[in-house]
């Protein structure tokens, strides 16, 4: 009986401590998430400028609450292209890609925002040479080079490479459809 009481006592204290810990973490989580959102938005604004050099403002194209893509405008307020973000399933994780295309649907730049692909293989999608390949590529050439496209896959990471292409291709098709 005494032993059972001791166990119950220990158990109750463990549960109580866990509940307090959870409450404290919840209280910290809310304000830090707000701050994190602000930071992510800043990063997105920087990425838009990076993938679309020359643009000074970006108009959101909305579908309900969701931002589908951005219309990039230059100093004279004329349309120079479109920018977008796309979450695409890669090999191990969801890859968030930022991309820009000009009015002829030729890629002006891409940037990998976040990913958790395999280090040493898929994670190489962030390397500059991989992203550089997309510059100046038109929609029809957005394929891996072994399929006749313009993009060389990363050795050992075909799925991750293909995912980045799919992300861009998906958005190019979507924008083409909308802007027709």
């Amino acid at each position, binding site marked *: 009986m005494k032993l059972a009481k001791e166990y119950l006592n220990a158990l109750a*204290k463990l549960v109580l401590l*866990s509940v307090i*810990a959870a409450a404290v*973490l919840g209280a910290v*989580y809310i304000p*830090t998430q707000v701050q994190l959102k602000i930071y992510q938005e800043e990063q997105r604004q920087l990425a838009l400028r990076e993938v679309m050099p020359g643009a000074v403002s970006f108009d959101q194209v909305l579908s309900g609450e969701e931002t589908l893509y951005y219309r990039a405008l230059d100093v004279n307020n004329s349309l120079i292209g479109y920018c977008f973000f796309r979450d695409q399933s890669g090999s191990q994780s969801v890859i968030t890609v930022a991309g820009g295309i000009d009015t002829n649907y030729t890629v002006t730049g891409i940037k990998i925002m976040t990913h958790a692909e395999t280090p040493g293989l898929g994670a190489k999608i962030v390397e500059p040479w991989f992203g550089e390949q997309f510059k100046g590529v038109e929609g029809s050439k957005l394929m891996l080079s072994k399929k006749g496209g313009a993009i060389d896959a990363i050795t050992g990471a075909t799925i991750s490479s293909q995912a980045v292409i799919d992300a861009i291709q998906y958005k190019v098709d979507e924008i083409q459809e909308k802007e027709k």
Partner: protein
Amino acid sequence: MAEMTIKGEYIRGIIKENPIFALVLGLCPTLAVTTSVENALGMSGAALFVLLGSNIMVSALRKQIPPITRLPMFIIIICTFVTIIDMVMEAYTPPLYKALGIFIPLIVVNCIIIGRAEAYANRNTVKFSIVDAFGIGTGFLLVLVLIGIIRELLGTGMIVLFGYHLISIPINPATFMILPGGAFMTIGVLMALVNYGRIRKLREV
């Protein structure tokens, strides 16, 4: 046993029980994040925060913590503080958070912190546990910053701290010092020097 004084307990954490050179604990983050002085400061700051929080909570609850569940309870306390600092750093210092990466969550299993909970805070008053946390934390910080200075200076030829250019020396930077090999070499040489000094002191006595 000699009576504990605040100053004595503080100094003990820096010299006699320095976590890296004397206790040889927490070597993994020490090797990994000392690529620059800034990273070293961020890491030891985070560790100090967790150590302080965990020492305070463990010593305050030491009479309430049942011996059979003490380790899970220590871990819950440490986890809570680590998650707090993890979320705060992610939100407010994103570049530093990115540089330290996995080593912030890994403070949970940092043997310095759980070691102090078990060996010190669980047996001492809140007051001395706070002093102990500051002592050990300072010891950790000094070693990390020292290694950071050596590696950043030799590896890049300069020290940049929070955007300010502090020192630069006219050398041909050895990238090797920034890589893991440089970490092993630096800490090996430092530890050899520390032990050399210690042995000489022993012989004199």
